[in-house]
């Protein structure tokens, strides 16, 4: 019998060249997110950007209520936890007092597009110089899979057991499209993080938004269309495929507005 090889973390690190290192801006805490969920990836790339741009000491984040309520357990920057839906107002309060700092809010669809709609729209309409990261997975993950404002028609959730019906439950709320129309918004984009390529694009969008904020360009919104394997009751792989086939036609990926100029949309074709 050959000698037993121990796959010790230390040995691996010693014997191979390091290809990726956790940024200083992420804590050591293990994330509570479900396997396959997009939150972890967005946390990672957001914090990578903060570190790469050397902004850890300049950044204040606002965590919402929802699955990412514990974002401050993972993001190693100063953070405030807001009441449900109020992250944009809290971020406004911080940014108005500390105009030279980088301020972001990190919110889900229920937080941003249901209970916090007023704060979201008015913060955008004032052109507050902040970055809003909006994770749209079309469901209330934390409370157990209820309908979200962005739940697509026909989609089954625990409160739309027969599928969302427009006549009684309304249409999926495309709040990002609405925000892009507001004259004070500077950069509005819709991204995803379900493939390595998508992750790269999303990270670039974050870099751009932070750069805009440093240049005092005003409000930036990055919607990340994401999956929720647990809430959707699918495996991560199936959920990503389902997202591409069902979510993307509703929420097409790409920039909606850049430099304050609306981008004329090409017809989305599957």
């Amino acid at each position, binding site marked *: 019998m050959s000698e037993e090889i121990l796959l010790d973390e230390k040995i691996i690190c010693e014997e191979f060249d390091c290809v990726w290192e956790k940024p200083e801006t992420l804590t050591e805490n293990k994330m509570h997110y479900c396997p396959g969920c997009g939150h972890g990836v967005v946390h990672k790339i957001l914090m990578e950007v903060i570190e790469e741009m050397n902004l850890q*000491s300049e*950044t204040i984040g606002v965590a919402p209520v929802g699955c990412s309520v514990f974002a*401050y357990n993972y993001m190693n920057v*100063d*953070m405030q936890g807001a009441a449900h839906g109020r992250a944009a*107002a809290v971020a406004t309060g*911080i940014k108005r007092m500390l105009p030279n700092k980088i301020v972001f809010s990190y919110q889900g669809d229920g937080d941003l597009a249901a209970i916090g709609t*007023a704060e979201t729209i008015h913060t955008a309409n004032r052109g507050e110089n902040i970055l809003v990261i909006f994770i749209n997975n079309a469901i209330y993950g934390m409370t157990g899979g209820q309908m979200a404002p962005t739940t697509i028609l026909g989609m089954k959730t625990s409160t739309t057991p027969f599928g969302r019906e427009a006549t009684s439950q309304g249409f999926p709320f495309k709040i990002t499209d609405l925000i892009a129309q507001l004259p004070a918004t500077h950069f509005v984009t819709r991204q995803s993080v379900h493939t390595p390529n998508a992750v790269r694009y999303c990270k670039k969008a974050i870099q751009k938004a932070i750069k805009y904020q440093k240049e005092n360009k005003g409000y930036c919104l990055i919607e990340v269309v994401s999956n929720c394997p647990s809430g959707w009751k699918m495996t991560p792989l199936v959920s990503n495929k389902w997202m591409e086939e069902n979510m993307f036609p509703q929420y097409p990926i790409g920039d909606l507005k850049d430099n304050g100029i609306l981008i004329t949309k090409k017809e989305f074709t599957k």
Partner: protein
Amino acid sequence: MSKEIFFMKGNEALAEASIRANCKGYFGYPITPQSEVLEYLSEEGVKRGMVVLQAESEVASINMVYGASGAGFRVMTSSSSPGISLMQEGISYIASAELPCLIVNINRGGPGLGTIQPSQGDYFQSTKGGGHGDYKLIVLAPSTVQEMADFVFDGFYLAEKYRNPVMILADGALGQMMEKVSFTKTLEQNLFDKSSWTTTGKQNSRERNIITSLHIQPEKMEEVNLHLQKKYKTIEENEVQYELINSENMEYLFVAYGLSARISHRTIEIANENGFKCGLLRPKTLFPFPHKILEELSPKLKKIFVVEMNAGQMLEDVKLSVEGKCKVGFYGRMGGMIPSPEEVFEKFLEFQKQI
């Protein structure tokens, strides 16, 4: 140099005081009868370097206060009753996260949309918490325009000393009436070191600061609660403020705050002219409530008479303090009605005659 005397509305005096007390941020929403605070600061505050923002709602303004206070600044908001109801969620979070700030309530008549006329109907929601969970605000009750100004300084000081939201509870009349006022108080900008908890950007020299009211482990949440209760107890022991008028040899004690105290002050003069020995206890702090003095005075008194512009809210605290050692009567008008001193005297006479 003789002190400068101004003739101002209560709301304006309060707003001017906030600038002089080095308040750096104001977030508010228009509502009668307090809109002058927002208007005054939108001009004078902005000119003198204050961040002033008209929010989209009271819900937003209280959460802007949360963010701005968490960033380490002396900040405030003001509103009137229905607006304060909307803020209760945010106030609960602020109390839990221990963020110092000043909240002004220029009380109007309710319930519901009610009326824009003065009322003291918000005593319960101000002194008993107001939102969800076990928490207390420090509540100051001015009764003159001068106190509308002075209590701003006291309010910010107490807020920062205890890391607790402070409410100035005044009725619409105090907000709208004009009286002479002078600004003699001062408040240093950096009274207390806030660096251990404010979110201003994580420096290498320290761990990140997190402001939150979420502690999912019940053991931890209980700890937070115990800490808060301990703090409230300290506040009760140290910060009670009241005024005792005409207390020598008194047989009857009136208890009233704010505008009711001014009315009652005249009533005890009428009563004394009519041969009754009446005194007045005017709580300046509604939380902490002056329990002790009432407890001490009550065995020596014939009767206690509480006057409020509500259905009898502080009355409950008076009764709790007295613990049945003295008969407690009450007269109150509601819905924006203000009783006259003569009317109060008549009601007192009726109560006085009761066996």
